[in-house]
């Protein structure tokens, strides 16, 4: 099916969502559903729970689209923040925070076009490269918090460090990650051209 809204920016599609346009929600799913599912699966380590998290997140997008304020950040950040929050809520509720290996999955997105897929791959490599440049302790704190769903207090206990140390690793690491990511020229979205 051709994507009628493919030419619009993420922000414009969110604005259409706020007006109860289901095609807009479908478009957001086509853009972010794959990343959302990959993230939720990474955090929850369970396919069905990941589906629940993605489903709840997209319904939160549907309900909250009218409250999205473009001045407070990109639509993609808002969407992925909602997905992350749902996944972390679920992982804490289910107490599934294990650090075992993630089962292999087919790296393929049903709804993605070749162009989308290429962009996703480049984006993944770019973020992974930036993460790899962080000092080990900062990367560890960020990864355990973001992908592991651990709170800062749990991290302090787990790593045997004072809370202040954890806070500063997360802050310094995230600020540095931002510099690294912004340091390169990159398109904010593949859909605006």
């Amino acid at each position: 099916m051709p994507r009628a809204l493919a030419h619009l920016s993420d922000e414009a599609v969110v604005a259409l969502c706020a007006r109860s346009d289901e095609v807009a929600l479908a478009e957001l799913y086509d853009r972010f559903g794959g990343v959302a599912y990959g993230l939720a699966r990474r955090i929850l380590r369970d396919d069905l729970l990941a589906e629940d998290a993605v489903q709840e997140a997209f319904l939160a997008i549907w309900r909250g689209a009218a409250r999205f304020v473009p001045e407070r950040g990109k639509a993609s950040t808002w969407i992925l923040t909602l997905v992350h929050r749902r996944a972390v809520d679920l992982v804490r509720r289910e107490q599934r925070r294990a650090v075992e290996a993630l089962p292999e999955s087919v790296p393929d997105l049903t709804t993605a076009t070749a162009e989308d897929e290429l962009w996703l791959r480049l984006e993944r490599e770019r973020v992974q490269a930036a993460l790899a440049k962080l000092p080990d302790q900062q990367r560890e704190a960020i990864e355990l918090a973001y992908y592991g769903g651990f709170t800062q207090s749990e991290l302090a206990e787990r790593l045997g460090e004072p809370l202040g140390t954890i806070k500063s690793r997360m802050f310094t690491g995230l600020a540095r990650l931002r510099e690294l990511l912004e340091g390169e020229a990159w398109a904010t979205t593949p859909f605006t051209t």
Partner: protein
Amino acid sequence: MGDDAVHDLTAAYALDALELEEARGYEEHLAGCERCREELVALQGAAGALAYAAPPARPPGELRGRILAAARAERPNDLRSLRTYRRRTAGFAAVAAVAACAVVGLAAWNVSLHNRLDRAQVALRGVPLTGAKGSVVVSGGSGALVVSDLAPAPAGKTYEAWVVEDGRASPAGTFAGGGRTIVIRLRRALPAGAVVAVTLERAGGAPQPTQKPFITSAPL
């Protein structure tokens, strides 16, 4: 808040690494702190990018249709019962939205009304239960069990749902009961003609039912 203690929480908040109470406190602080709002936009951007570094995975094909059907069920047909329903069921919000329609008595509810989205068409059916108030809501080959007024399972016990096909029962998830209406996502495919059943089992669940089911559905 005169000291830096709350400002310090920005990175942890951006990573969703605060306890619930800390997060609420930070959000209150945020309303009156321009510096934190700006910092949060920057750090949340970086945190959001981390999503792309997760191993890619293909979401199941039905997920898209389920989300769109649930969204459609919420708006514009905003059933009043849906709202109270949603508040009670923190998880499974979408299935709950769909299930609410079954609970209010729409046994067969076809969402192909708007067929602008041909890929999103999903037929949802409600199948009645005996032994408890509720139904099985079926969408394609998957579904959820919706039960009202089920007493919490006794200590050391759990309810277990089964999908029974040709006399063979496969475990489809355990749950605790309690609450007015609960929605249990069935972790097992639902073939046509199968029956969904519930037994009371020892905590942790059993690989096979150890007693006669006290809740059964009509054939799906």
